[in-house]
């Protein structure tokens, strides 16, 4: 894709995201419609009159933070997936490759079954677990040297994830508390239900920093996607860059998982779908995947919270349900000319 087309394409995706947010906030299982929703938002922005407390709570405390969090999580997961696929040169790399979802699940389950007590919040527990697991993966993969070999990282990730998954299952069985287990399942599948403004305060700054770091390494990613030697030949400090990107990915994923559980599919296939559509130049690919990931997850979550009205389904279930056919379509369409 030429530089000349970059601007319009990103502008188009950003516009699509804006329209998505604007529409999604008007959709919900209650009969609070578009007009009432905009009244609430306008009221909070100081350009309109207020609404009834119930309507206000529905739009301002439930729908809007949830829509925005879906966007932040979708963007973040898609970004991390894109970066990891390039640095690992592995098309199956996704944000959970680094043991993060397994570690976060373990941390969350500890909180759920009450071992951590009320002092340790769910978000803290999940983030802590994610970081412990990531540290384990890095320790295993790096061994005594500072060099990180992609194949070793993948294997270390599998080993650490298995260990944490087993520990999670053991805790659930030992606790033998179906009522707590119900919440754990919801969390393990990934859910944006109950999104709050404070979740956004965690996710958005980390997303901004992560995006900044990743964009600054876009050229290095282009080179690393070809090979470590090729990257070194054009002056990329491969070891340092890989460390930087891995740590950034881990922190961002840890924060996202901590506020939303382990939502699958977005981080694995959204990068591929976007790559098929916009090409392999990370200077374009990174912002494009972020925008596409945000738009995708907002719509999927809108489906998850309304399709089975009056109940909810975990968004992690819906991502693949909707995403797999969509991806198949992109895949087939792009394959045909060859």
């Amino acid at each position, binding site marked *: 894709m030429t530089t000349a087309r970059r601007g319009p394409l990103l502008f188009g995706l950003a516009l699509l995201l804006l329209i998505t947010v604007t529409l999604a906030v008007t959709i919900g299982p209650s009969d609070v419609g578009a007009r009432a929703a905009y009244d609430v938002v306008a009221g909070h922005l100081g350009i309109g009159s207020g609404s009834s407390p119930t309507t206000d709570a529905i739009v301002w405390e439930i729908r809007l933070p949830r829509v925005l969090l879906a966007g932040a999580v979708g963007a973040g997961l898609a970004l991390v997936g894109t970066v990891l696929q390039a640095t690992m040169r592995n098309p199956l790399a996704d944000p959970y490759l680094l043991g993060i979802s397994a570690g976060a699940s373990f941390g969350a389950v500890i909180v759920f079954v009450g071992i951590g007590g009320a002092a340790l919040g769910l978000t803290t527990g999940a983030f802590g677990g994610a970081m412990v697991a990531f540290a384990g993966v890095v320790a295993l993969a790096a061994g005594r040297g500072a060099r990180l070999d992609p194949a070793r990282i993948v294997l270390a990730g599998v080993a650490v994830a298995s260990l944490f998954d087993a520990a999670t299952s053991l805790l659930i*069985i030992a*606790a033998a508390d179906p*009522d707590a287990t*119900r919440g754990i399942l919801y969390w393990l599948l990934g859910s944006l239900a109950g999104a709050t403004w404070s979740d956004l305060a965690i996710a958005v700054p980390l997303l901004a920093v992560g995006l900044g770091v990743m964009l600054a390494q876009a050229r290095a990613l282009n080179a690393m996607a070809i090979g470590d030697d090729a990257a070194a030949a054009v002056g990329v400090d491969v070891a340092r860059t890989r460390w930087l990107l891995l740590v950034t990915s881990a922190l961002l994923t840890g924060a996202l998982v901590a506020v939303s559980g382990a939502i699958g599919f977005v981080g694995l296939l959204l990068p591929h779908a976007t790559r098929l559509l916009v090409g392999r130049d990370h200077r374009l690919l990174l912002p494009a995947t972020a925008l596409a990931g945000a738009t995708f997850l907002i719509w999927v979550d809108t489906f998850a919270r309304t399709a089975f009205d009056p109940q909810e389904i975990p968004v992690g279930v819906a991502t693949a349900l909707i995403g797999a056919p969509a991806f198949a379509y992109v895949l087939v369409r792009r394959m045909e000319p060859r």
Partner: protein
Amino acid sequence: MQNESLARTPAPRRLVVMALTAALVVGACGGSAGTTTTADRAATAAAPAAVTATAAPIDDCGTRVPPSPPPARAVTLNQGATEVMLALGLQDRMIGTAYLDDRVAPAYAAAYAALPVLAKEYPSREVLLAHRPDFVYASYASAFEADAAGPRGALASLGIRSYVSPFGCAASARPPRVTLAGVFGEITDIGRVFGVPGRAQTLIDGQRAELARSLAPPLPGSGLHVLWWDSETKAPFVGTCCGAPAMMLAAVGARNVFADVAGSWANVSWERAVAADPDVIVLVDATWDTAASKLRYAQASAALRGLRAFREHRVIELPFSDTTPGVRVVTGIGLLADGLRKLAAPAP
């Protein structure tokens, strides 16, 4: 179909169990309310409610619930909560219910049918708020998770009070053992909140009288070793030390084979059940795991059909909803006592 996946606890919990651990617990959460506050309340409720007693907040799972003003737009989540409300004749204060395990007791069926059902299982937060409730009453803490009604604190900030059955509190706030005092304490609490302490006392007095009739000495379970088979077959899910099954068995004077296993229910190995060769086996009859299916499994199993209780058909079937802590557990104790008396009676 959905109902078949339901267990002692609502379906998603059941799903979790199957999805995650294949052979896990299906029980409602154990423990019961023997807390001082509950006992005090039970004791004071008999006397005409003093003004000070009425105003004191109710300690519910560590959350303080102001007992007044009486709610006018209550929503019940879970069958147990719904049945307590209907047993107190409070349907005119309810605007909706959700989440049955099976069917409400026949005595409350008509009142129940007249109430809107907000969702088959838990309604989402937005749906709940859109109905503008002023009180949310649930049997399990899971009702207040993010995908359901949302945290109690968030409801409170909208002026919506909430109450969770003491047996359904999160593990950290749950009484260690199910007791009848706890069952009655919940009824007393709800009576206070809705300003009908007299009705609550009448209901409790009636239940005590019913108990006295079914448990007239000699206790029908005296000297008997009983296995409480709730559900599942490979690693049976049985009543253990501290849940409603344990409380019911203790009430009739029987000894529970698995009294030494912690918690309310647990998946155990058949080996110990066979070694114990129980005098009587209780088969819980639930729509998703019937007594008949358990009996068929036992008759087909070489290890089980030799047990005395199966050989001599010393089994008692109890409907599932009469074996959960709530307004129906007294009926369950009565059925258990009757069953034991029938087994003791000489064959005609």
